[in-house]
């Protein structure tokens, strides 16, 4: 006979059956039966008590992005559930597997505006992959199995289980079976050989081919296949922000990052490519600029696991509905060994102009410290081997530009939603997932304060996150737009900040403030060498701006090198002079 247990106990056992050993959460009335059972499972299932539910979901996202396994969040009903909304939306945009379990008032109170009742399924349906309310204890194991299956397979995403209190308290006969099939959902489409042959023919006949690699490559673990294909066919690779670490930064075919603040080579030359192989990217507007002028000389092959992304933002010539690794693995034998040296060299020409004009200014600034040189110093100190977690804004774009990567799965940042406050809790989750790796968080003084309460979580668990606050006493990215596009009218961007080191020390976290260039190297070395969490509060130049820049909705050829100068490809420059 099967054992009779409560729904709350079944929930915990179901999580354990799915291999969960760490959850992030915050207790409250409607989830108390679960927390009561958790008390007896401490040995196998660790619970991290955050300081705000938003911190729980961002930490779970950080955990998920570092490991490719679902991050799990447990919160109470009403405000508890409402506080994870931002993270759900973020996780959906950035294809992050997260399972949120929210308590709900008793089934008979539903719809009565009971204390701490909110319509969780109704609110979360537009921003989750799937959401379900569970009202009966016997439905809990199957609901958990379905939640995990959906979160981690196909295009990963967030799911919500809203569990009424009666279901937690009721009893069931314990039995658990993982889910492997849903008739309305096929997470691993079979690659069509004809599609692959057609794609290979396009690539083999290309004069100026270009690979655009995105987050999908990382999610499917196709880094090796990507490199093999690029090397065999001699095709330069550009990555999206979320795809940054899919190829080592110093790989000769890695030509840099796409996007508004990406590298000049990949952005400018997108419009010269004749065939583009886009793998696991969704042609976000920050990557394409004005789509009417995007890659018009190119036939695009789009590999994606999510068929709804095909022709959504950009019209493509060939779609391959597949997991990136499946598709690339089968494409490799079909492509010819080739080199495109003249074409590849153009990227280096563009990027060397960027190095001379933009990077060297950022890294050899005379006055106050710049964000770029701080990030560069940290990256060098960790031998470019750390996990980079960023907040959103200038700190994020500078980190994406000046941090280097040697290992896959090393970039965790809020891409699609651009959630300020994401970074600090995400770094906690990443460090807990990868305790053996150095995790460096970069944030601005604005975003840092949006989830600053999670310093309490770091204190409680001794999470050894290296926190670098790029402090310019401004909301820097908005300030940059105001300076460039709104006549330097700095509306509501200057910030009066507290002493962050004093705050850190109140939490018992070691810290150091850096105001001068001479102190930087020593301070960074001290932070990395220190065995434990460390906050580095670095005063940086408020006038520092992220360049190059393609203004929102602009053309990829229209790249600002600074406020007054636009990039010109050397050939054209010569032509213009004649």
């Amino acid at each position, binding site marked *: 006979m099967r054992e009779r247990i409560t729904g709350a106990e079944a929930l915990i056992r179901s999580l354990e059956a799915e291999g969960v050993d760490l959850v992030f959460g915050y207790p409250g009335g409607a989830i108390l039966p679960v927390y009561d059972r958790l008390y007896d499972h401490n040995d196998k299932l660790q619970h991290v008590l955050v300081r705000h539910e938003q911190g729980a979901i961002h930490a779970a996202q950080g955990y998920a992005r570092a490991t490719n396994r679902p991050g799990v969040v447990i919160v109470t009903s009403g405000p508890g559930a409402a506080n994870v909304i931002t993270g759900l939306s973020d996780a959906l945009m950035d294809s992050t597997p997260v399972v949120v379990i929210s308590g709900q008032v008793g089934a008979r109170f539903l719809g009565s505006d009971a204390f701490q009742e909110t319509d969780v399924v109704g609110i979360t349906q537009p921003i989750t*992959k*799937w959401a379900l309310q569970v009202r009966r204890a016997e439905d809990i194991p199957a609901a958990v199995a379905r939640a995990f299956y959906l979160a981690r397979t196909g295009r990963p995403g967030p799911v919500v289980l809203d569990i009424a209190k009666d279901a937690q308290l009721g009893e069931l006969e314990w039995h658990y079976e993982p889910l492997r*099939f849903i008739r309305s959902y096929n997470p691993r489409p079979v690659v069509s050989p004809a599609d692959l042959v057609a794609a290979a023919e396009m690539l083999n006949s290309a004069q100026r081919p270009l690979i655009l690699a995105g987050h999908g490559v990382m999610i499917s673990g196709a880094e090796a296949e990507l490199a093999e294909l690029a090397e065999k066919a001699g095709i330069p690779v550009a990555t999206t922000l979320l795809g940054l670490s899919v190829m080592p930064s110093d790989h000769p075919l890695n030509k840099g990052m796409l996007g508004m603040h990406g590298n000049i080579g990949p952005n400018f030359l997108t419009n010269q490519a004749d065939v583009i192989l886009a793998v696991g990217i969704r042609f976000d507007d920050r990557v394409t600029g004005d789509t009417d002028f995007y890659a018009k000389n190119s036939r695009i092959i789009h590999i994606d696991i999510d068929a709804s992304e095909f022709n*959504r933002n950009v019209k493509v010539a060939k779609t391959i509905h597949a997991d990136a690794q499946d598709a690339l693995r089968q494409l490799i034998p079909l492509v010819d060994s080739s080199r495109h040296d003249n074409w590849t060299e153009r990227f280096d020409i563009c990027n060397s102009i960027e190095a001379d004009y933009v990077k060297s200014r950022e890294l050899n600034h005379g006055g106050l410290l710049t964000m770029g040189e701080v990030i560069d110093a940290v990256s060098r100190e960790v031998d470019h081997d750390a996990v980079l977690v960023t907040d959103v804004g200038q700190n994020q774009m500078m980190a994406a530009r000046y941090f280097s990567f040697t290992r896959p799965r090393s970039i965790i940042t809020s891409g699609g939603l651009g959630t300020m406050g994401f970074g600090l809790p995400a770094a906690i989750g990443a460090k807990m997932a990868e305790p053996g790796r150095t995790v460096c968080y970069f944030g601005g003084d604005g975003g840092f304060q949006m989830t600053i309460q999670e310093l309490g979580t770091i204190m409680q668990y001794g999470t050894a996150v290296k926190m670098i606050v790029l402090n310019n006493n401004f909301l820097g990215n908005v300030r940059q737009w105001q300076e460039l596009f709104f006549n330097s009218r700095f509306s509501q961007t200057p910030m009066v900040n507290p002493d962050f080191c004093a705050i850190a020390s109140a939490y018992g976290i070691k810290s150091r403030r850096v105001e001068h260039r001479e102190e930087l190297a020593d301070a960074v070395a001290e932070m990395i060498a220190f065995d434990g969490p460390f906050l580095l509060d670095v005063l940086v130049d408020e006038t520092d701006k992220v360049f190059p820049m393609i203004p929102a909705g602009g053309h990829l050829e229209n790249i600002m090198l600074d406020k007054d100068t636009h990039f010109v490809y050397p050939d054209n420059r010569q032509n213009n002079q004649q």
Partner: protein
Amino acid sequence: MTPATHQQLFTITVYSEHCVGLLNQVSIIFTRRCLNIEDVSASRTTLEGVHRLTITVWSDRETMEKVVAQIEKRIDVLRAFLYTDDDIIYQEIALYKVDTRKLIDEQYLENIIRHHGARVLDITPDFTVIEKSGQPWETEALLDQLRPYDVRQFVRSGRVCVTKSSVEVLDRYLDEQQIRRHKIENNK
């Protein structure tokens, strides 16, 4: 908003699992794009557990193709299809509640009903209910003729349709899923 010239009436059929919140999952996809649904009907199908929505909306093809892709992406949706009027046979039902006392004196009433292919569903001393199935312009035409008799209520069911295609795509899809299921279970 005035409809642009390339706008036309599309019919979307959605086959889904029969579960709570399905209609909301589908309707929010329209809401997000500020698309106004003309009419919507929901019903069971002959297939076990499969439910069907029929939705009509004025829009352009590109928008509609993206909407259908988003609908199909929802986990509980089996398939969603986009049609224009050429692809389908469609019909709707209208009911008219009319004042019996005014009708009783009308010598041509029988002619009107016969002419429009309508029928009387119920007669009480107070009101009479007439039913007509047809296309919107046909039910509209009967409404115009009945107006003098004080139409107290008028309601349309919204469109139902079947495809003209000789291939039943959903059946084929479900067969394929059955094969996929066996493969997965045999791999256990």
